[in-house]
Structures are given as C-alpha cells and as structure tokens.
C-alpha cells in the first residue's frame, strides 16, 4: 500500500508508468527508426478517413443511405458548427480542408481509447505542430492575399477605434498574440490534452492490473477495484475530451482562416 510512489523501480513494488515508457516507443520494424506506433496509426487514420469519404461521396445519392448518411451527419456538423459561424458565405469553399482536419484529428484522438491500438497520435507533439503550422502558413498567406502584404499586418496590429498614442503600446501585444502565441497554443492545446489523458488512463489501468492480477492481496484488492472503476469512468470522460479537442482544433482553424479573409470590423 505504501508503494504508491511514482517512478518507483518496477520490481516488487507498484510503479506508475512513466512518460518515457508510455510515449518513447521502439520502432515497429527494427532498423527503421521513424516507423513507430503513432506513425503507423497516423497512416491508418488517413486511409480510414479517405476510405470513409470515398465510400460516402464517390457516388452520392439525393436521398442518402447507409454510409453516406452517417458521413453526411459529420459533414453537416462541421459545416454548421465550425465553418459557417466563422466563414459565413465562404464556408463551402473551405469545407474540404475543415472536414479533413476535423475527421483526422478526431480519429487520431479516438485511437487513444480503441482497444489494442490505444495510443492517441496527437500525444506526440510533432503531429499537432504539423497541422497547426499548416494552418499558420495558410493564415498568413490568405491574409497577405486578401488584405495586401502590408495591409494584413496593419489591420492586425492597428485595430481601428483606439486613441493614436496607445498603438505604440498595444501593437506589440497584437503581434505577439496573433503570430506567436496563437499558433503555439493551437498545437499545444491538442497535444497536452491527449498526453495528459493517455497518462491518466495508463496510470489507473496499471493500478487495476497491478493490485488485482500481479499482486492480489486483501488490502490491495479494493485499490485495484478503484483503479478499474476509474479507468472505465475516465475512458468515457476521455472520449468526450477527444471529441471536444478535435472540434476545437477545427474551429480555431476556421477562426484563423476567417480572420485572414476579412479584416476585423
């Protein structure tokens, strides 16, 4: 019971899983260093998303049935909740990108609770960085294209309706906020949620496994039961978070694109 020390050496005592064990995975094929579990899952996810959209929309019917019906619900969710509030009449033009981002991130995240696979791809920060970086480049490109190379930065750093002298003080804040903090938090928000969620699930399932199977003792058994119950509860909670983060990631992408297309107010 007193062995609940984090990072204890695995031997006779319970040791909580460490980030190194959970996230630093060996290559699947020895010698091919880049090909690890998250890479495999990312490839799988892409194939599944392409297959789903292909199956649903390759031969669309006016009255949708089966797969088309299901995927159309996802499409309409992204259109009504993500694209239209931020892009207005430009929404349809950006649906391809936003639907892809939403479904890919959603499946990346769900990989964390699908049995056997059980690894949220976005808990390796490289994956969210690539997506967020893509949106970042797109946002600056669109801003320069639609508001002029200088106009974009002028609109961003000097929002209308403020006293003249205060611009000197506020322009750096706008610059830092829009061009450095925003893309950074865009990626880190997804990464940190998935990382922490995976740690929590791994910890509680480890507690359950250890106290009920490895070292079954009268005193330890209740702890193990708590571990199992918490694993089940947190899995449900985690699925909600996974959906929420995918939604937020796509929503912020739509927001950045929308702000680049039209100068604020």
């Amino acid at each position, binding site marked *: 019971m007193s062995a609940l020390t984090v990072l204890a050496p695995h031997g006779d005592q319970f040791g909580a899983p460490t980030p190194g064990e959970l996230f630093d995975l060996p290559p699947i094929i020895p010698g091919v260093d880049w090909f690890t579990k998250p890479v495999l899952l990312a490839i799988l996810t892409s194939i599944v998303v392409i297959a789903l959209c292909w199956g649903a929309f390759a031969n669309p019917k006016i009255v949708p049935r089966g797969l088309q019906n299901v995927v159309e619900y996802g499409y309409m969710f992204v259109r009504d909740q993500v694209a*239209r509030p*931020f892009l207005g009449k430009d929404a349809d033009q950006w649906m391809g990108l936003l639907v892809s981002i939403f479904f890919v991130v959603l499946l990346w995240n769900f990989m964390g609770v699908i049995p056997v696979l059980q690894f949220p791809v976005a808990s390796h920060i490289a994956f969210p960085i690539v997506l967020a970086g893509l949106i970042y480049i797109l946002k600056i490109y669109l801003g320069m294209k639609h508001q002029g190379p200088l106009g974009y930065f002028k609109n961003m750093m000097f929002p209308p*309706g403020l006293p003249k002298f205060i611009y000197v003080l506020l322009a750096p*804040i706008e610059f*830092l906020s829009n061009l450095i903090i925003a893309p950074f938090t865009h990626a880190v928000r997804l990464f940190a949620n998935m990382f922490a969620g995976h740690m929590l699930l791994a910890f509680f399932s480890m507690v359950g496994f250890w106290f009920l199977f490895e070292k079954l003792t009268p005193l330890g058994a209740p702890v193990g039961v708590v571990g199992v119950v918490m694993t089940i509860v947190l899995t449900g909670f985690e699925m909600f978070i996974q959906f929420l983060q995918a939604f937020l990631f796509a929503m*912020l992408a739509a927001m950045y694109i929308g702000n680049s297309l039209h100068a*604020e107010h």
Partner: protein
Amino acid sequence: MSAQERRPETDGRDFADAMWSVPSYLLAGMAFYGGLGWLLDRWLDMSAFFPIGVILGVVLAGYLAYRKFGR
C-alpha cells in the same frame, strides 16, 4: 449595432473570437512587457521592472481586449 440587427451567426462568432483571443492577448501582454522589464532589470542590475512589466502588460492587454470585444 442594435440588438434587433444582430444575427445569431455573427454573435456566436464574436463570442468565440473573444473567448479564444483574450487569453492569448493577456499572455502576449505579460510576455512582451514582462520581457522588457526583465531586460531593463538585467541592464540596470535591479529587480523591480520585471513585476512592473508583467502587471503593465496585463493591464494593457486587458484594455485592448476591452476595446475590441467589450462593446
């Protein structure tokens, strides 16, 4: 814009805009002016400018957020 002219779509957009922009403004304000204060401290061998900068940054960012989203 009067209450009648508001459309729910643009309302939602403004709200979400504010919700996601304000924290990043506050962070940026603290980082920029706190950073300036930290540099001043290093230069003058003092320790007062860093906290002053952080607070100034939060106040300025709060003012910016208020003027942009507060109406």
